[in-house]
């Protein structure tokens, strides 16, 4: 199944889509920041602070 063209949605559906996209973007942003911190800490744990 594929996503429908934006023009196929009503104003109400478009509002729901935007709200969900914003919520997913926030979750993805938090996950990516968390991963950056984790990868940094893994690097420190593996090679030490001074390499």
């Amino acid at each position, binding site marked *: 199944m594929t*996503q429908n063209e934006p023009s196929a949605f009503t104003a109400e559906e478009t509002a729901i889509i935007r709200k*969900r996209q914003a919520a997913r973007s926030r979750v993805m942003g938090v996950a990516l920041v968390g991963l950056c911190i984790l990868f940094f800490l*893994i690097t420190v744990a593996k090679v030490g602070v001074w390499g």
Partner: protein
Amino acid sequence: MTTATRDIILPAEWRDFWALTKPRVMSLVVFTALCGLLAAPGSIHPVIGFTAILCLALGAGACGALNQYFEADVDAKMARTAGRPLPAGRMDRASALNFGIGLAAFSVGIMGVAVNWLCAGLLAFSIFFYAIVYTIWLKPNTPQNIVIGGAAGAFPPVIGWAAVTGDVTLIPVLLFAIIFLWTPPHFWALALFMKTDYGAAGIPMLPNVKGQRVTRNQIFAYSFPMAATAILPFALAETGLVYGAAAIVLNLVFLALAFRVWKNETTDAAAMKPEKQLFAFSILYLFLLFAIFAFDRMVIS
């Protein structure tokens, strides 16, 4: 979301992706893996230990997502699972598949790079075993599905142990065996009072195929080797008296409940109190057994 008049699919909510990972199953995986990690001899850097548990959780999430992708049609036929994102029409199947494959690849890759490749190999095998061997092959084809498939759920403490030691010795194999032998009585107790649900979905669970008497016999029969295996770490002097006493008490309660299930003759799901009690206790049993095992080993070491 699909409307009756137009075939509209809205993007799934992030909560639906979270639901795909079966968080409750994931919590048991994380817990048993953490116990394996804490019980292992030696030490592990806290960041690496955290990464190992995180990768296991993500791997378990991948199993859940792939399982729901393959079983969307079956889930739609059971009241217990009809509300999941795919059968409820809140998500398209391709999203679930991509999410599952992505999580699996990510968790195995990070496990290999950050922890060790033995853990990564075990994690990859357990994901493959659950998503492919169990979900696609065993579950729809044999009433012994959860006996063999239980192996997938038994890997987490082994991986937790291997994250610390880098190898697999007798104790993690015993932890594997405890979960492996615990799985049949746990799931068959559920299958007894959910028989109609599984039957409607065409899943050949033991009660549907062999009948309730055979299932009750098997539950009682499996409880004995499970109890013996659970007490073995104490018998082999690998744990202290705290675990030994707890294992004996917990297994006596488990055997008593399994005995009541064995003696029960009712076919009415509403009257299956012993089966519901055994199912509920089996979850508590595993949590307590592994928690006390880890505590005991940490005190000894």
